[in-house]
């Protein structure tokens, strides 16, 4: 039974791996912003890897993240497979049916396409919503885990500071 908790567990495991790989491949950034980017990148890769399915957003996220790092073996490996699959998938997705879109809906779907990674490749509105739903689940897992990590880190950070001060 796949539950939300299992999603989070998968994300955590992947995140540990990506963090270590990222840390080993880049020189130690002293800047907070660089660290933030590295953490964000690793967690994005982690949710995409945790999804590990044939969703457009996961592959698009991997390719988008892969462009941001110079040498990252795991991302490259996934990226190669993802690139091939994504080409085929885009072809099938572009079978356009007839649809009449009202103006408001059209604008909003374009905005949604810009938000969801890989959304621009999806022409079928129905499929876009499916992708969005899936993406929201994994985004939520990411937020939950990161929030917990941040809280625990904060508490342990305070404790170590107290001990050092004593």
């Amino acid at each position, binding site marked *: 039974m796949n539950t939300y908790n299992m999603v989070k567990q998968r994300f955590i495991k992947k995140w540990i791996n990506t963090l270590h790989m990222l840390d080993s491949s880049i020189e130690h950034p002293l800047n907070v912003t660089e660290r933030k980017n590295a953490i964000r990148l690793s967690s994005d890769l982690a949710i995409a890897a945790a999804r590990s399915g044939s969703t457009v957003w996961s592959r698009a996220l991997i390719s988008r993240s892969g462009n941001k790092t110079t040498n990252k073996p795991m991302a490259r490996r996934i990226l190669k497979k993802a690139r091939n699959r994504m080409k085929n998938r885009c072809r099938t997705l572009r079978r356009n049916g007839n649809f009449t879109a009202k103006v408001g*809906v059209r604008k909003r779907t374009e905005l*949604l396409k810009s938000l969801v990674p890989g959304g621009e490749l999806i022409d079928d509105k129905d499929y876009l919503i499916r992708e969005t739903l*899936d993406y929201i689940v994994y985004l939520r897992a990411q*937020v939950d885990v990161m929030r917990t*990590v941040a809280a625990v880190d*904060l*508490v342990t950070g305070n404790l170590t500071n107290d001990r050092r001060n004593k």
Partner: protein
Amino acid sequence: MDLTQGFGARSGVVGPVTGLESLNFSDEFRHLVATMPPENTGGSFTALLEMPVTQAMELLHFTDSSSSQARTVTGDIAPTTLHPFGALTFPSNSLLLDRAARFSVIATEHNGNISGETANSLQSNSGANLDRVKAEPAETDSMVENQNQNYSSGKRKEREKKVKSSTNKTKSSVESDKLPYVHVRARRGQATDNHSLAERARREKINARMKLLQELVPGCDKIQGTALVLDEIINHVQSLQRQVEMLSMRLAAVNPRVDFNLDSILASENGSLMDGSFNGESYHQLQQWPFDGYHQPEWGREEDHHQANFSMGSATLHPNQVKMEL
């Protein structure tokens, strides 16, 4: 609904067949229950259907929440309270996410890309899925199984419908061994030719999916109209992405290095992440291993050598300590 495009263009071989197609299932089964007595022997499932969907999901959630990380779902149903994720700002709780997460797994397995990680009973293609699901012993699973079966057979039905929709007089589709014929009754005053039937079925599917999306995004149920629902969804996605950005900034500020210690999270996840009440948990953990802060660099080095084993090892070690303390 103007989202009905694209359905007619699809042939029987559809690339992205995700589990959300199973949503059409609930609509058609309502027709089914209304029109003819169900033939399948899954009595518990039909009982499930007569309940509102959210109640059914609640029951499913009981089975989910009762299973800890170690046990499979065949455990006993200790009626745990529903756990809303503690300090979340979002009012929607875990069962919706479970439901959506389940759909995402259905999408995974149905597309043939079976990830080795999710070792659940959904992970096969339709036919084998039914057999394996049948083998599950516990009665708590019966509802889950039936739902799984019906998801997969819903997908098969969906595919067959797409192939046959243009030629069928009625909307009955030859089902797998599990489900009987599905008849869609035309309501009074509605056209009954093939096109409108197909259109109506498509519209209902889209509506069902939008309903699920509305449930997932908090505050969306009261909004009518596609544009506003999309607005809510967009806001939700944007806020989630912004939160990720802020949280990663926070993590970067707290930790001097990128590979911060996640083992504590793995150990505590069973307590804190699942229950959502992490404040008390973290305090307990502090009392147990206050030395972890000092040993952080060493653990980081160890992890470079054996990542996978290490994370699993620590996970088994610490939860015992945590649980005993509790």
